[in-house]
Each structure stands twice: as structure tokens, then as C-alpha cells.
């Protein structure tokens, strides 16, 4: 097969068409500063620097198929993105400490009513002073607008180098959003104590965030050469729900968001961390060859391939623990196994399991990339 260019390769993998090799798109926003000798606090405060260390790392390692994100996600207004409090290097943490989400009950039970009456974005602004984030409350909205402009700028900088941006942030799945802002414990309490109220809040969030996200993608597309290839929908807590609750409070919203995004011409990428083994068959309900499921090394990706082969593109999942503790030959062996098994018949994008850890061994990161570029034993379709 002729060599494909990166964008062709990615398109083919998503649509389950033959590829010359598996596309490689690792998530490198946290490890790049460390690899470039830059403290994490500096990239949190300087988003141009956050992007530039990612570009330098991309170039140092000989490149791959697309940058996962255009720049850094971690800022002093992370609340506006994740709806959760966080602790940041250079603020609450030492300068080179890893940022972390800080599980707190910011949203109180009475805020269900506020959200249903005023909307989700109004809630994020209303509750922001409770978060205790470093950006002052009167700068919250202006800072979010600056962040959006930064995303456009970062995308243009990558594109000027001929490198496309893979993912932009899509709508946060409503159950995840509530569990982030209300705490998992209280959200589970809502599932049992006030299910109708929770459901009404989730309805409100979905109705507001999906059209907003579609608008953002369309605006970016106009302002850049290629825009974002996929919309990132992150989830990690929903598989804690047992089947009837999973369907009612999570899955029906995912199906709706996926369908709305697809209708708008946007490819959804389900970045689903934690263990989804018991829910793999649900993904068969999504349209074929149009959605990506990205796993983090906790779900059995080999089992996922068995269940979803010929149905959807899988992405992942070199585990964080392997990148930190393994030897390069172990990383190579794991990547080859991924390509052999999950890559069989196309429909696979090689990536890190969630984020490449900040303390990954540089030689392991290189082994992952180099093996992905040099190894592809399949040249057939299903």
C-alpha cells in the first residue's frame, strides 16, 4: 500500500478503511514541559509556552500524525472546562508539582433548581467564587474568552507547520459534569434520593452544551485550515453506575450528543477512562465507523476489539504505569501487541492511555512512537 499522509491515515482509521500503518496520536500536554526542562507552573501561566513545549517535543521525537490537543488545558480557569475545583502548580502546589482535580461539593442540592432555571453556563459563573481559583471572579468570563482565542491561535501555529490538531473539547457528558461539580458521592446520592431532579438537570446541561460545542467547532473551522478532527467527550465515572442507572443518567445523553455532533459533521471521540469492560456492548448502539472509543489501559482494550471489531475505531492505550516503570523493550512489546490485535483490520489509533504521565521515562515515550511508526503487519480490511 502507498504511504498515506497523516490526515488520510487518521480518516481511514476512523472510518475502518485500510491504512498503511496505525496513526499515532499520544496525549503529551503534561509530559512535554518535563521533557523540555520547563516547570509545570510556567506552562499553566503561559499558554504560548505550553504549546511551544508540545511542538518542541513533537519535533524532538520525529513527529507523529497529529497533535492530540493544540495546547495546554490546565489554567487558572480550569473550572470553566472541567466544572471541578483544581490545585495548580505555582498556586496551591509547588512549581513543578502535577496539577490535580480537587473533588469538592461545590454544587449544593439547591443548585439543581438554579441550573434548571438559569442554565449550566450561568451556574458555572454563579458558583465560580466558591471554587477559590486563582483567577478573580470578575475575570472569569473574560479569561474563558481569552482561552477560546488561544485555542484558535494554537491551532493556527500547528497548522503553519503542516501539523493538524486532532481534538477540541466537546461537550462534557452531563453526568460527568454534575459528578465533577457536586462530587461523586453526592451525585450518587441524587441518583437514589432525587432521580427526577437529577435527570432534569442533566437534560438542561445537554440541551445547552451540545449546540454551544457545535458552534465552537464551526467557528474554529472557519478560522483555521483544518479545524479539529474530533470532539473530545471525556468520561470516567459513569461505569460506576449499574445498568438501569447507567442508561438513564449517562448513556442516553451520550447517544444524543453523538447523534447531534454527527449530524453537524463532527466526529465524536469518547475519551473514556476507568473500566468499561461491562459496558462494551453498548457502543454497538452508536453509528458504525463514525465514532472513536479511546481507552486508558484500565478497560481491556483487547476485549473491546473483540466486541467492537468492524464497528468503531479504538484508540489507546499504552498504560501510564508502563510508561513510568517499564523498560523500552516492554513498551515496544506492548505497542506491537496493540497493533497486532487491536490494529487488525484497521480501526485503531495508537495513543497513550489517557495522558502520558509527567514522569514517563523519555526512552519509553520514544519506544512507543518509534514502534508505532515502524511496525504494521496488516494490510487487509475486514
Amino acid at each position: 500500500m502507498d504511504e498515506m499522509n497523516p490526515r488520510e491515515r487518521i480518516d481511514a482509521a476512523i472510518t475502518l478503511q485500510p491504512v498503511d500503518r496505525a496513526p499515532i496520536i499520544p496525549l503529551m500536554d503534561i509530559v512535554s514541559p518535563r521533557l523540555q526542562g520547563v516547570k509545570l507552573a510556567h506552562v499553566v501561566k503561559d499558554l504560548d509556552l505550553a504549546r511551544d513545549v508540545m511542538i518542541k517535543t513533537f519535533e524532538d521525537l520525529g513527529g507523529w500524525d497529529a497533535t492530540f490537543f493544540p495546547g495546554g488545558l490546565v489554567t487558572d480557569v480550569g473550572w470553566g472546562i472541567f466544572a471541578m475545583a483544581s490545585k495548580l502548580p505555582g498556586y496551591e502546589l509547588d512549581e513543578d508539582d502535577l496539577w490535580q482535580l480537587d473533588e469538592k461539593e461545590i454544587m449544593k442540592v439547591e443548585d439543581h433548581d438554579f441550573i434548571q432555571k438559569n442554565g449550566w453556563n450561568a451556574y458555572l459563573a454563579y458558583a465560580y467564587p466558591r471554587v477559590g481559583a486563582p483567577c478573580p471572579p470578575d475575570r472569569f468570563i473574560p479569561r474563558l474568552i481569552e482561552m477560546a482565542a488561544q485555542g484558535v491561535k494554537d491551532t493556527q501555529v500547528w497548522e503553519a507547520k503542516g501539523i493538524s490538531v486532532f481534538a477540541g473539547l466537546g461537550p462534557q457528558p452531563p453526568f460527568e459534569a454534575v459528578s465533577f461539580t457536586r462530587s461523586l458521592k453526592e451525585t450518587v446520592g441524587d441518583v437514589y434520593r432525587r432521580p427526577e431532579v437529577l435527570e432534569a438537570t442533566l437534560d438542561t446541561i445537554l440541551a445547552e452544551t451540545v449546540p454551544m460545542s457545535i458552534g465552537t467547532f464551526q467557528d474554529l473551522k472557519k478560522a483555521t485550515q483544518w479545524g479539529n478532527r474530533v470532539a473530545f467527550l471525556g468520561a470516567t465515572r459513569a461505569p460506576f453506575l449499574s445498568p438501569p442507572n447507567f442508561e438513564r443518567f449517562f448513556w442516553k445523553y451520550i447517544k444524543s450528543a453523538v447523534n447531534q455532533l454527527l449530524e453537524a459533521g463532527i466526529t465524536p471521540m469518547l475519551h473514556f477512562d476507568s473500566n468499561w469492560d461491562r459496558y462494551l456492548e453498548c457502543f454497538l448502539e452508536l453509528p458504525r465507523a463514525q465514532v472513536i472509543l479511546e481507552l486508558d489501559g484500565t478497560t481491556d482494550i483487547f476485549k473491546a476489539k473483540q466486541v467492537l471489531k468492524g464497528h468503531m475505531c479504538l484508540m489507546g492505550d499504552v498504560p501510564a504505569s508502563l510508561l513510568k516503570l517499564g523498560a523500552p523493550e516492554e513498551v515496544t512489546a506492548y505497542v506491537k501487541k496493540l497493533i497486532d490485535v487491536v490494529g487488525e483490520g484497521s480501526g485503531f489509533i495508537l495513543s497513550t492511555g489517557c495522558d502520558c504521565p509527567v514522569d514517563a521515562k523519555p526512552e519509553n515515550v520514544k519506544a512507543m512512537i518509534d514502534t508505532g511508526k515502524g511496525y504494521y503487519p496488516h494490510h487487509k480490511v475486514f
Partner: protein
Amino acid sequence: MSDALITAISELEEAQVVDLVQERLAAGADPQAILTACRDGMAQVGKRYEAGEYYVSELIMAGELFKQANALLAPHFAVGDGATKGKVVVGTVKGDIHDIGKDLVVGMLKAGGFEVIDLGVDVPVEAFVQAVKESGAKVVGLSGLITLSFDSMKETVAALEAAGLRSQVKVMVGGGSLTEKVREYVGADALGSDAQAAVSLANQWL
């Protein structure tokens, strides 16, 4: 009489649990017997989880019910009442502030009849050593989600060794990204894949 309370906990019927505990206390029932029924209910929840019927959310909710029952029962116990199966020191290690898994383990261990010394999150190495020294606990549970926690866990185990305590305690580790390879790196005795596994390990060791 205990069956209704056991069932109410096992079925996650919050209002019934509270009503039944209050009714029994008002009727002069032995608080220890009520606590035993609550623990039996939690044991049933654990079995349903192991059987795949219940998921993590049911463990979280059951933990909340047990906490509420305990709060109602607490004033009826004098300090030192109620023998436990043993003491367990638990915490999320230095540099990591994730508490969902740790709190689940704490709740399930308490429901399983263990006295838990919960050190919270971002726990310095010395705090674990101090807690083991002061409590005489024979089991230590180290929790962490991010890869940086692996080094803190390793340092904590080394500090227990340096303090001459390692041979007296069993150390279990748990958290989202942990694997058997991580357990080996840390030098722990066992890896717990979930909160129920932590209870099983503590039962084996104490």
C-alpha cells in the same frame, strides 16, 4: 427482628434504615445487636458487588447508609465499647489528593468491623509511620491514582522499614493506574483491585 434492617441496607432503602435504627433504639434494643445487623447488611452489599449485581455506586450509597446508622448509634456506645477485628491505617499518599477510592475503602473496612485510622489525602510519609507507631495497626492501606503516587508509596514502605515496623505490618496498595508491577516496585504485600478486595485482604491478615 434484625432481618428487616439487614434487608433495608442490602436494598439501599435509606429512609427505612434510619427509621429501623431509631425505632430499635427507642424500643431499648442492644445497640451492639443493631450495629451487627447493619454490618450484616453491608456484608450482603459486598456479596452482591462481588457477584456483579451491584456496582461502585451501590457501594458508595451503602457506605452512606452505614455512616448514618453509625451516627445514630454512636451516642449509645461508651468509648472503647465494641471489639473490632483490628486496626488499619489508610491514606492517600504524599502528592496525591484523590479521595474517592480511599473513602470507599475506609467505609467498607469500617462496615467490615475494622477500626480505621483515616489519615486523609496527600499524607506525608512520616504521618503513616507515626500512625502505625501510635495505633499499633497491623495493616496499612496506601491509595493513589497518579503515577507520582508510586514513588510516595515506595518511600512510605521504605520509611516503615527504616522505622523497624515493616515486619509488623502488612501493606496493601490500590488505585486506578496500579498494577502488579507497581505493587512490586512499591514493595507492598498486596494490590487491592477495589474496596471489597481491601476488606478481603484485611480479613486474611487480621
